[in-house]
C-alpha cells in the first residue's frame, strides 16, 4: 500500500507542469516523496504499531531537505546545522516571494522547487496515513483534488489532458491495490456454485447499478448548480479575488488579472447599471496603471489618508488649475448585488464629485476612488463628471507636456530595441504629439492585428511586448492598451493604462447596463491643455470577435469625428460619437433605432434584453434548469427505492427454477431484507424457525417494538407462508438433500405483504423510500468462522 500511494502521488506530479517553468523541479519532489513512502513501507514490514510512522517520515524529510537544499552549510554536506537551517528558511522565503510575485508559470527557482518538494512530502505523509494507516484510500482523492485546483485556479490554461489522465490513473491504481489487498485478507477466492447465466445476470446487474449511480451523479452535478442561483461558478472567483490593505497603503491584486478573468468568464452577467444625463456616456474607469516594468503595467500604490478622503469634491487632475468649461453631468451607478465587491469605484472620467456611502479616498494623480473598508455589494452611488471632450483640433494644438511630472514617460531600460524602432518608424513625419498618437493607434487598428481573448502563448524567452507587436499580433484589449501606452511613452507622450468598463449598452428604460463582457483596458495619453484623453487601439476583429462595445472617440479617429471607426461593430452606431460634436444626431440614435441593440452581435445580448424585458428570442427555456434539478433531486430520492426494487426483482426472478436450496436461500434473504426495511430486527443467532415464530407475531408489540400505530397482527395466510419459507430455508441449510418446495415465490409475496400490513403505514413508507437493508451496517453480519466449516 505505501508503494501504491507513492505511485499515485508521482503520477500526480505532471499536474503542476503548467504552473512551474523549468525541467528539473520535480526531481527533489519525487525524491522526497519516494523517501517518505519508502520509509513507511520498510517500517511496516516489521509489523509493529504504525504510530511512529509519521514521526519517522518527518525525521526523514528534515534530514533530506538539508543535503538537497542547503548542502554547503551542512556538516559534511548531510547533517543539519544552525546555518543550514537558516539557509533553508531563507530559501523558503525566496520561494514564497517568487510564487507571490510572479504570474504563473513560475520559474522553478531553488525556493519554488523546495516548496514543491515540501508540499509533496506533506502530501505523501498524509496519503500514507489515509491509505495505509487509516485504510481509506478514497480520501487520497481529496489531496489529489487539492493538487488539481492549483493549476485550475492559477492558470488559465487549466490542467493538461495527459496530466489529468495520469493523475486519475494513479488514483485508480491506488484504489485497485487497496481492493486487491482487502480481497487477499478475506482468504482465497472460492468459486460460487452459480451457473454461468446467473453469474452473467449478476454481472449485468452490477454494471447497471454502477452506471445508474454514476449517471445520477453526473446529472445532479450538471443540474443543481443551474437550478440554485447562489452556486454559480463565478462565486468561486470572488474568493480568489482579494485586495489586501497594509497600513494606509492599499494595493489590489492585479487589475489586469481580474480584467482577463471577467473577459474570459463564460457568463455575461451584468456588473452594474447606471443612469446618466449624458447623451453619450464615456467609459467607466476603475484602475489606472502607470508603471511599466518591462512586462506588465502595474498600479502605483495609492494611499488612504485624511488628505485624500473624499468629502464632496475630488481634487483637480494634473494639468488643470480650475474647473474647465462644460456642464456637470450626473451619473447614478448601481453595482449589481451579485458582483464581487469593488473597492475601486468604476467612474467616468473625469469625476468632480462622488457621493457614495462609506469612506472613500481619491488618488489625486489618477482620480481613482477607492476604499480600505470592505464595501457592500450592490452599492448605489452617484458621481458628477465634467462633460468635456476635446476635439481633434484642440489636441493637435497641444505642445510638449509641461504641467505633468516626468514619470509618465518612464520606461524600463531593458526593452526590446525593435519596439523603439517600430515606434520611430510609425511616428516619423508626425509633428505634434497628437499626430504621433494617431499614427500609433492607426498601427493597431489598421487591420494588422487580430482580436482574440485567448492569444497563443509567448514562446519561452521571447519578450511578450515585441512578440505581440511584431510577431503574432494577436491579443485583446490588455495587450493593445499596454503596447500603445508603451509606444506612446517611447514617442514622448505621457501615457498610462486605464482598466474598467466600456459604456455598456442602453436598455429600454433609459438605463445603461454594463456586463462582464464590457470589461476593457485602454490607454490614456496626456496632452498639454487637454489633460488625459483616452485612445482606442483595440480593433474590432473579423468574424464578430472583439471588444464589442468599445468606441473610438472622435478626436482619436483622426479626422474630427466623421472618419472611419475601426473599433466599432455594425450594431453600435449609437455608442461611438461624441455629444460635443454632434449632440443632436447622437441623441436621437439610441431611441430611433432600438432594433440596433438587438442586431446580431458578437456579444451576448441576453442580459440586456432579459432585464429590459424586450426579448423575442424564441421560447423561454429558463425553467429547464429548475426542472432538471427537480428531476435530478427526485431521481436521487428514488435511487434507494429503485435499487431495492431492482434487487427484489432479480431475486424473485431467480426463484423459479434452479436449485431448491439456492432458491430457498434467495427467498429467505429477501424476507430478511423486507423485515429489515420494515424496521424489524434480524439476528444472526436466530434459526429460521425462531425467526418465523417471531415474525408471526410481527407488529403485535409482543416482540418487535412497533414504531407507530395500533397492533396489526400478521394475517394467518402470511404466517403459513412465513413458516413454509422458514422450513424451506431450514431444509436447504441443514438437510442432507434439500427438498424442493414449490410456490416459494407466492409464499414470499404473501409473507412480505403480511409483514408490511402488520408494520404500519409509517414503516411501509420508510421501507419504500429508504430501505434499510441497503445499508451494510444494518445487515446482520455473516456468522464468523463459517468459512472454515463449508466443505
Amino acid at each position, binding site marked *: 500500500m505505501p508503494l501504491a500511494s507513492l505511485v499515485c502521488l508521482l503520477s500526480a506530479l505532471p499536474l503542476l507542469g503548467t504552473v512551474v517553468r523549468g525541467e528539473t523541479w520535480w526531481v527533489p519532489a519525487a525524491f522526497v516523496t519516494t523517501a517518505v513512502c519508502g520509509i513507511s513501507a520498510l517500517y511496516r514490514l516489521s509489523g509493529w504499531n504504525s504510530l511512529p510512522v509519521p514521526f519517522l517520515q518527518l525525521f526523514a524529510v528534515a534530514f533530506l531537505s538539508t543535503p538537497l537544499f542547503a548542502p554547503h552549510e551542512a556538516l559534511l554536506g548531510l547533517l543539519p546545522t544552525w546555518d543550514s537551517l537558516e539557509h533553508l528558511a531563507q530559501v523558503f522565503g525566496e520561494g514564497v516571494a517568487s510564487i507571490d510575485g510572479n504570474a504563473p508559470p513560475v520559474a522553478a527557482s531553488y525556493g519554488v522547487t523546495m516548496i514543491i518538494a515540501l508540499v509533496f512530502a506533506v502530501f505523501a505523509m498524509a496519503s500514507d496515513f489515509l491509505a495505509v494507516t487509516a485504510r481509506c484510500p478514497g480520501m487520497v482523492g481529496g489531496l489529489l483534488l487539492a493538487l488539481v485546483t492549483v493549476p485550475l485556479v492559477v492558470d488559465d490554461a487549466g490542467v493538461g489532458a495527459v496530466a489529468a489522465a495520469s493523475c486519475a490513473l494513479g488514483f485508480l491504481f491506488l484504489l485497485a491495490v487497496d481492493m486487491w489487498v482487502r480481497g487477499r485478507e478475506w482468504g482465497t477466492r472460492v468459486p460460487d456454485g452459480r451457473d454461468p447465466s446467473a453469474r452473467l445476470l449478476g454481472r449485468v446487474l452490477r454494471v447497471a447499478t454502477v452506471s445508474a449511480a454514476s449517471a445520477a451523479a453526473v446529472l445532479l452535478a450538471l443540474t443543481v448548480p443551474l437550478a440554485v442561483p447562489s452556486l454559480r461558478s463565478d462565486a468561486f472567483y470572488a474568493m480568489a479575488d482579494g485586495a489586501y490593505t497594509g497600513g494606509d497603503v492599499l494595493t489590489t491584486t492585479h487589475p489586469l488579472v481580474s480584467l482577463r478573468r471577467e473577459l474570459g468568464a463564460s457568463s455575461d452577467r451584468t456588473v452594474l447599471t447606471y443612469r446618466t444625463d449624458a447623451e453619450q456616456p464615456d467609459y467607466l474607469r476603475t484602475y489606472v496603471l502607470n508603471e511599466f516594468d518591462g512586462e506588465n503595467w502595474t498600479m502605483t500604490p495609492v494611499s488612504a489618508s485624511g488628505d485624500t478622503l473624499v468629502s464632496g469634491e475630488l481634487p483637480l487632475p494634473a494639468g488643470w488649475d480650475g474647473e474647465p468649461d462644460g456642464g456637470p453631468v450626473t451619473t447614478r451607478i448601481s453595482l449589481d448585488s451579485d458582483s464581487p465587491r469593488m473597492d475601486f469605484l468604476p467612474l467616468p472620467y473625469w469625476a468632480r464629485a462622488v457621493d457614495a456611502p462609506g469612506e472613500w479616498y481619491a488618488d489625486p494623480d489618477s482620480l481613482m476612488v477607492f476604499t480600505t473598508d470592505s464595501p457592500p455589494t450592490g452599492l448605489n452611488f452617484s458621481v458628477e463628471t465634467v462633460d468635456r471632450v476635446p476635439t481633434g483640433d484642440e489636441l493637435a494644438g497641444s505642445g510638449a507636456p509641461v504641467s505633468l511630472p516626468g514619470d509618465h514617460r518612464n520606461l524600463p531600460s531593458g526593452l526590446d530595441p525593435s519596439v523603439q524602432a517600430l515606434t520611430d518608424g510609425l511616428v516619423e513625419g508626425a509633428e505634434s504629439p497628437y499626430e504621433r498618437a494617431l499614427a500609433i493607434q492607426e498601427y493597431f487598428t489598421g487591420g494588422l492585428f487580430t482580436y482574440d481573448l485567448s492569444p497563443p502563448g509567448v514562446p519561452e524567452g521571447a519578450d511578450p511586448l515585441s512578440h505581440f507587436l511584431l510577431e503574432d499580433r494577436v491579443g485583446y484589449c490588455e495587450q493593445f492598451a499596454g503596447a500603445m501606452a508603451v509606444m506612446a511613452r517611447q514617442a514622448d507622450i505621457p501615457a498610462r493604462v486605464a482598466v474598467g468598463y466600456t459604456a455598456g449598452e442602453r436598455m429600454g428604460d433609459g438605463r445603461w447596463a454594463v456586463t462582464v463582457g464590457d470589461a476593457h483596458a485602454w490607454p490614456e495619453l496626456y496632452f498639454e491643455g487637454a489633460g488625459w484623453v483616452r485612445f482606442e487601439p483595440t480593433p474590432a476583429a473579423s468574424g464578430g470577435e472583439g471588444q464589442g462595445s468599445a468606441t473610438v472617440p472622435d478626436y482619436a479617429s483622426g479626422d474630427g469625428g466623421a472618419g472611419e471607426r475601426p473599433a466599432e461593430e455594425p450594431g453600435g452606431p449609437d455608442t461611438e460619437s461624441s455629444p460635443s460634436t454632434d449632440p443632436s444626431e447622437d441623441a436621437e440614435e439610441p431611441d430611433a433605432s432600438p432594433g440596433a441593440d438587438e442586431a446580431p452581435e458578437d456579444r451576448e445580448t441576453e442580459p440586456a434584453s432579459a432585464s429590459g424585458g424586450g426579448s423575442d428570442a424564441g421560447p423561454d427555456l429558463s425553467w429547464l434548469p429548475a426542472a432538471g434539478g427537480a428531476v435530478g433531486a427526485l431521481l436521487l430520492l428514488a435511487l434507494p427505492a429503485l435499487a431495492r426494487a431492482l434487487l427484489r426483482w432479480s431475486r424473485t426472478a431467480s426463484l423459479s427454477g434452479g436449485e431448491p*436450496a439456492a432458491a430457498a*436461500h434467495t427467498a*429467505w434473504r429477501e424476507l430478511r431484507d423486507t423485515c429489515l426495511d420494515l424496521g424489524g430486527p434480524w439476528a*444472526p*443467532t*436466530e*434459526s*429460521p*424457525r*425462531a425467526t*418465523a415464530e417471531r415474525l*408471526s407475531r410481527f407488529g403485535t408489540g409482543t416482540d418487535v417494538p412497533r414504531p407507530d400505530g395500533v397492533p396489526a397482527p400478521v394475517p394467518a395466510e402470511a*404466517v*403459513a407462508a412465513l*413458516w*413454509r419459507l422458514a*422450513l424451506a*430455508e*431450514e*431444509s*436447504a*441449510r*441443514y*438437510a*442432507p438433500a434439500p*427438498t424442493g418446495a414449490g410456490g416459494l415465490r407466492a409464499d414470499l409475496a404473501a409473507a412480505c405483504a403480511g409483514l408490511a400490513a402488520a408494520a404500519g403505514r409509517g414503516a411501509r413508507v420508510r421501507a419504500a423510500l429508504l430501505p434499510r437493508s441497503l445499508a451494510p451496517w444494518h445487515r446482520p453480519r*455473516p*456468522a*464468523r*468462522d*463459517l468459512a*472454515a*466449516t*463449508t*466443505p
Partner: protein
Amino acid sequence: MSLGTHHGGRGGGVQEDVGEIVAVADRVRGAIETVIEGKPEVLRIALTVLLAEGHLLIEDVPGVGKTMLAKALGRAVDCSVQRVQFTPDLLPSDITGVSVYHQDRREFEFNPGPVFANIVLGDEINRASPKTQAALLECMAERQVSVDGQTRALERPFMVVATQNPSDMEGTYALPEAQRDRFMARVSVGYPAPQAELDMIDSHSSRSPLDTLVPVTDAAQIRDLTDRVRAVHVAPGMRRYVVDLVNSTRTSPDLRLGASPRATLHLVRAARAYAALDGRHYVVPDDVQALAVPVLAHRLLPAPEAQMERLSPEQIVAKLVARLPVPGPQ
C-alpha cells in the same frame, strides 16, 4: 421452546424411519401423560435421552413426581425396570450384584444386581456414599459390569434415571463434576400447573394411575429406534455450531469449568434424537438450542464472580446460546 407444535413443524421432510420414531414416541408420551400431566418438555427430554442412549438426572424438590416419571417411562416401554433406593449404607455390590458360593454345587454363582435392567431408577442418588455412586457411574459410562474379574455387558437399551434432591443437603454426597458429566441431561420436573394439579387429585384419588399404564412399546423396538436415531443427519455447519457452543462454555469468563468433549458428543446425540422426535432426519439449530441447557448446564461450574451475581449455569448457557450465530447458508 415449542418445537413443531404448530404450522407443520414436521414438514421438513418426514421419512419412513423417523416417522416410526415419531409414532412410537407419541404413544409413549401419551401413556406417560396419563400419569404425569402438564410436563411435555420434561417428557420430551426424557424420551430424547432414552433414544440417544444416555442417562437422565432428574433434580428437583421432593414430591413433584421424579420417581413417578421414571417409573412411568419404564412401564410404558415393556422392558425390565429396577429401582435402587440409594442410602448411605448401600454398597457397590448392592448395585452390581454379587457372586455367591453355592455349597452344594461348589461354585460361585453371580447374582446380578439391579443394574442389570433396561431402565434403572436410582432414587436419591446423592444419599449414597461416593464409592457406591462410582460403581453405578462406571456401569453408566461403560455399559458393562465388572465383578470378580469378570466383565458382563449390560443389555440395550440401558438407561439410568437418577433423581436427586437439591434442597435437602443433610447427610448427602453431592455428585462430583466428573460423575455429573456422565448424565446426558438434567431436568427438573417443577411444580405442576394449577389445572394439572386439580386433575391429579381426581386421577390419583382412587388408585395409582401407574397400575393402569399398559406398555406401548418394547425394548427391541427401542433398540431399533436408537439405531435409526444414529443415522440422523448433522450438517457440517451444525457440527461446527455444537463445537462452538461447547467451546464458548470453556472460554466464558462466567464459568470456572466448561463442558467436556463428552458433552459435545452427548449434545450431538441428543440433538439427533430430538430432531427425530420432531420427525426430522436432520438436526437444526433449534434442537441444539433447546437441548443446550439440559445437556450442558449440569456440567458447568460458575465462576465466583458469576456466583456473586447469582447467575446460574442455566442462565449462562442461555446467554451463550443467544450470542452464537446459527450456521447460515453454506
